[in-house]
């Protein structure tokens, strides 16, 4: 028994030490533009996108193709790196997987309705925002909820990513109502919970919410705290972050970004 414990503890230490060294090397080894050279070597830009947010990043169940505003932005970045917008490889991510996938190099960029916060900037590079939205709330039509004041004692379903929860918490505190939060991994799960009556409110950024609107539900007029979506990259990939930032700036200046937002029918 003692030997087993010693073995377990030592293997745990070995794991921690190894991963520690791994991240050390990544920091020291990343010279100027080395990260971009690595992407060019690989021949394709690997991007993590949402697959459950209609108009932003959505996998069409009929064709199995992932498309949306964020995939078009990924194409623009690929154009900048390779001179060829088709050299992208998209992969579905969730709030839970996008961080680890960036850190282990599985993907180069995350363009997945990723809200920029000061706390997150400590862990990843963020580009300037390509889209600005606000947090909104969806309820069932027959629930009798008109505004945030009617939320006392209600359950709010949010996705496992900080911003919605914190925003609604601040707003309900201001309005003097008490609510309870339930966090889910994906948006369809929150919608299912709303349909089942597990939660009274489905709350997330307005543009995402619009994709889930149906006959039995309604989106309230209340709109809170602006959410800025940025493109995230691994902290050590500084040259890549700079290039992405420039791409967004150029797209804004040329009006291309506005054109894309209009193309996808996002307000």
């Amino acid at each position: 028994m003692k030997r087993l414990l010693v073995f377990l503890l030592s293997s745990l230490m070995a794991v921690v030490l190894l991963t520690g060294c791994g991240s050390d090397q990544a920091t020291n080894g990343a010279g100027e533009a080395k990260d971009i050279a690595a992407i060019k070597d690989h021949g394709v830009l690997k991007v993590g996108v949402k697959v459950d947010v209609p108009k932003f990043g959505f996998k069409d169940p009929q064709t199995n193709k992932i498309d949306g505003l964020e995939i078009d932005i990924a194409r623009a970045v690929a154009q900048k790196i390779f001179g060829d917008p088709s050299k992208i490889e998209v992969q579905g991510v969730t709030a839970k997987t996008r961080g680890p996938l960036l850190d282990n190099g599985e993907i180069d960029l995350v363009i997945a309705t990723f809200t920029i916060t000061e706390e997150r900037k400590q862990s990843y590079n963020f580009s300037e925002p390509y889209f600005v939205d606000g947090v909104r709330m969806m309820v069932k039509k027959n629930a009798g909820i008109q505004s945030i004041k009617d939320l006392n004692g209600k359950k709010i379903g949010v996705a496992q990513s900080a911003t919605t929860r914190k925003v609604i918490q601040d707003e309900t505190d201001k309005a003097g109502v008490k609510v309870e939060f339930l966090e889910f991994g994906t948006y369809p799960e929150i919608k299912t919970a709303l349909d089942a009556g597990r939660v009274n409110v489905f709350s997330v950024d307005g543009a995402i919410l619009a994709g889930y609107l149906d006959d039995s539900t309604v989106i309230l007029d209340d709109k809170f705290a602006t959410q800025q979506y940025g493109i995230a990259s691994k902290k050590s990939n500084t040259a890549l972050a700079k290039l992405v930032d420039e791409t967004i700036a150029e797209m804004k200046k040329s009006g291309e970004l506005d054109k894309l937002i209009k193309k996808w029918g996002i307000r």
Partner: protein
Amino acid sequence: MPGPFAAFKWAALGRDWTVFAGGFAHTILVSFLALVLALLLGIIFGVLASSKQKGFRTISRIYVEIIQNTPLVIQVFFLYHALPHLGILLPTFTVGVLGVGVYHGAYMSEAVRAGVEAIPRGQLEAAYSQGFKFWSAMRYIILPQAKRLAVPTMTNQAVSLIKNTSVLAMIAGGELMYHADSWASNSLYYGPAYIVTGILYLVICMPLALYARRLEEQMEVQA
């Protein structure tokens, strides 16, 4: 040093330790109640499976086959998302205890059945000849002997049960895994979050697993 295991991320976890402590306590409570339920179901259906009446055996068989051959996640989703549409809105806590308890009850029942069937038929007949009825013969003669064989398996099931409460994270269950997921995706400090969570599960499961190992060894000595 950036990276998933940066020192400031560990420090943030240290500040928020109550989140993990609360989830840990919740996991222990759900596990305990689910374990009680699983033991009860296991004994009842295990004994029914060795009954002489075909009807009882069939009921036990149906329970075991349906539960063992569908994933726990589906069963929990059914209790959580589907039952409300039929007008039954169980609290999330109840869904957790019921889902995990019923699931492992099926495995416990198989362990009990194996234990009972290993006891020679003559034991039950001898009990009958002394005037025992079926259930009292089970209670005083058969089960005490079957216990020796069944308990190591059942202890291993208890370990699985504790780990499987982590499935409740998917239905906002409020246990350890849910809070770990929530904290990790809010702060993006997933490195420390999941290491600590893993260690916490290890802390409850390993003593139980070692206990099961010891029981097995004792049985070998006796046999």
